[in-house]
């Protein structure tokens, strides 16, 4: 198994290299450092000297792939691609375009992100699966039909409306929670509960319907009939047999997102003013800070690949037939 994991992680290198080449092409070749300098300097201050100055200050004054002016190995290493792109592989994110250290920001900002994403993920998983099992238990009845219609209706509402309605009702009208903001420490729950509740509500339609479809497919199979024929109660059939056998497709969708929980949610964090990585990213997008966007893209890909490996490992835990060779 260790062998397999090492091999999978080695596969990650060409993928991350591809990601880097893609973002590098977007941000340095389609969009030249000159363009960046122009945006950040503003239309009034654009002079050739100012652009050169800005580029030197931010380390963008090097050739893209090949530095003819340098000596020896520096011909290749003293270039933008190595400096800005390859250094990400050793998690050296460098400074943002506003001068602050990206790595430090990530370290402090991932905790608030995690504080929202982790409860949302865990409670959500439990709630959605229970709701789906409930619908399956009552399958074919009016309750099931009503539940499915409710799910479709809920997933037809834009996520923005859940946030807006949540803030308006829970924050402004009923005064349960502060509308937005964050403070570290034990008092954080006051600020965290509403984003978590809103994210849970926003996700229920899509997920519950997905899980219900999984269970319904499973419940038509022969082993379920056998289990019933043995005289097992319907609840036992659902929880032991159906849920157990639906585990593989559930894990496929679920495990891969776990590492990415660190990155937080763009929309939720920016609406609720949580100083996490999601709002960091969205601020960077709005300020056109490409250094941060590049780092977050790399981090996101890295975490996704870790998630894929974790998914494979999790299969072996729930299904003894799966062996990683």
């Amino acid at each position, binding site marked *: 198994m260790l062998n397999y994991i090492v091999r999978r992680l080695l596969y990650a290198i060409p993928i991350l290299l591809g990601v880097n080449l893609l973002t590098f092409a*977007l*941000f340095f070749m389609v969009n030249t450092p000159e363009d960046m300098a122009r945006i950040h300097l503003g239309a009034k201050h654009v002079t050739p000297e100012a652009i050169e100055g800005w580029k030197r200050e931010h380390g963008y004054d090097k050739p893209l792939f090949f530095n003819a002016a340098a000596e020896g190995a520096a011909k290749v290493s003293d270039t933008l691609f190595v400096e800005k792109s390859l250094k990400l592989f050793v998690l050296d994110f460098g400074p943002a375009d506003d001068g602050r250290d990206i790595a430090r920001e990530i370290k402090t900002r991932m905790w608030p992100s995690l504080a929202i994403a982790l409860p949302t993920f865990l409670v959500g998983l439990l709630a959605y699966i229970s709701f789906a099992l409930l619908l399956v238990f009552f399958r074919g009845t009016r309750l099931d039909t009503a539940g499915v219609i409710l799910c479709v209706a809920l997933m037809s509402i834009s996520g923005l409306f859940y946030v807006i309605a949540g803030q308006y009702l829970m924050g402004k009208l009923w005064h349960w929670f502060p509308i937005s903001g964050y403070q570290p420490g034990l008092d954080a729950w006051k600020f965290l509960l509403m984003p978590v509740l809103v994210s849970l509500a926003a996700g229920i339609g899509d997920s519950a319907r997905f899980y219900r479809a999984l269970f319904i497919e499973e419940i038509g199979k022969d082993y379920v009939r056998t289990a019933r024929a043995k005289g097992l109660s319907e609840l036992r059939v659902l929880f032991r047999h159906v849920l157990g056998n639906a585990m593989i497709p559930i894990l496929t969708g679920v495990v891969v997102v776990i590492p990415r929980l660190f990155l937080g949610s763009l929309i939720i964090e920016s609406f609720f003013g949580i100083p996490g990585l999601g709002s960091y990213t969205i601020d960077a997008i709005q300020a*056109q800070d490409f250094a941060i966007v590049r780092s977050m893209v790399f981090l996101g890909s890295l975490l*996704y690949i870790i998630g894929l490996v974790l998914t494979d490992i999790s299969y072996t835990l729930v299904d003894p037939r799966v062996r990683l060779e």
Partner: protein
Amino acid sequence: MNFKPVLLWSDALILLLLAAAAAGVWLLRHNETFRAPLRQVLASRMGSATALILAVYVGIGLLDSLHYVERLPDEPGREAQYSGEVKSVLDKLLAPLRENVEKTYSAPFATHLYAKETMIGPDGRELRDYPRLKHGGAHLADPDTEFWPDVLKRGGLGVLGGMVCWVLLVFSLWQRGRSHGALAWTLLCILVVSGLLVALAPHYHVLGTDKVGQDVLYLSLKSVRTGLLIGTLTTLVVLPLAIGLGIAAGYFGGFVDDVIQYLYTTLNSIPGVLLIAAAVLVVQVQIEAHPELFDTSAARADMRLLALCGILGLTGWTGLARLLRAETLKLRELEFVQAARAFGVSRTRILARHLLPNVMHLVLITVVIDFSGLVLAEAVLSYVGVGVDPAMISFGNMINGARLELAREPVVWWQLAAAFLFMFVLVLAANLFADQVRDALDPKAKGRA
């Protein structure tokens, strides 16, 4: 001619899409594998009702896609001059809504402005009060007493008109044996609502006005085109990539498969919003750097919209491609493909005649299911600031402009409510329709609840 038609790029593409769809239907009109599912969708209650609702939206979107510029009054000795403002047929139809601009917010059916103003009273002294609207309910001499009778009278006439149309339509369809319950009731709802709007909208702001006094109903109707374009034009990019690469990966295997799998794993590994944001930022910079390419602001916004569709398509083909690859892997080993190969049928012919038709149902299902997701994505992306042009009327921009106004006292809720309502009906109809299409096309779905 006092107008000149203008063909924006997106208009051209949407007409192309329409022509392609029409051609497809025409070619397949005798094909039973295509007709049976279609009949099943349209014969089901849900399928026919949602198809009708979607057709209304598409109609609005199409009317809004026929653009023209008006000719300015002639000056002697000069060539004809055209206005720089691009209008659509929908704008022309909604002229009373478009032109009845108030000063700022006003509630639905209001006769007075949302904000107080300093005015000169009848006795010559200054006083602060809510001024009357310039257009909304302006025909009423005394709004306090005349408002309800007037609204009821006009509304009643509108409902009556809608019902008369319905009776005529249903009667004529019934004679041809083409009507059934759910469809008729949906039609009744649509006709009554349109009757009400036709009767009331020219005289009142039915859904209120926004910050700069534009009619919210007009904004909502204009947003429909943006949403539909995002949902449909993206497919133009997705389909060739997903079909080509997915089938190629599955059929050829080996090196081709490795490269294509590498491509979509790489694209997939980047968080979706971030990749889209990154690409849109780049496009934005490029558009700003080349202002000379776009002669009107409409053309500029249009280009940004197309770029957004392109980016959504380039990032969105991976799911379908993976699905098609898996299906092709399975089909490749089946007897009919083996037989074709044994007969010496060429590779391209096997791909085009034997594999492609057998994965078409997956393609159709995915296209229909993805549509609603794309409409929703537009709103989120516009909120993040990487969606359509901020000057373009869209659901995302409407929500974005209105969400801070909930903090006002009294609450300005109508703009959000209107965006919510129009989006909800569109996405719900699309979702329900997609379910019907899936049930009709997916052989595995048969007999499943």
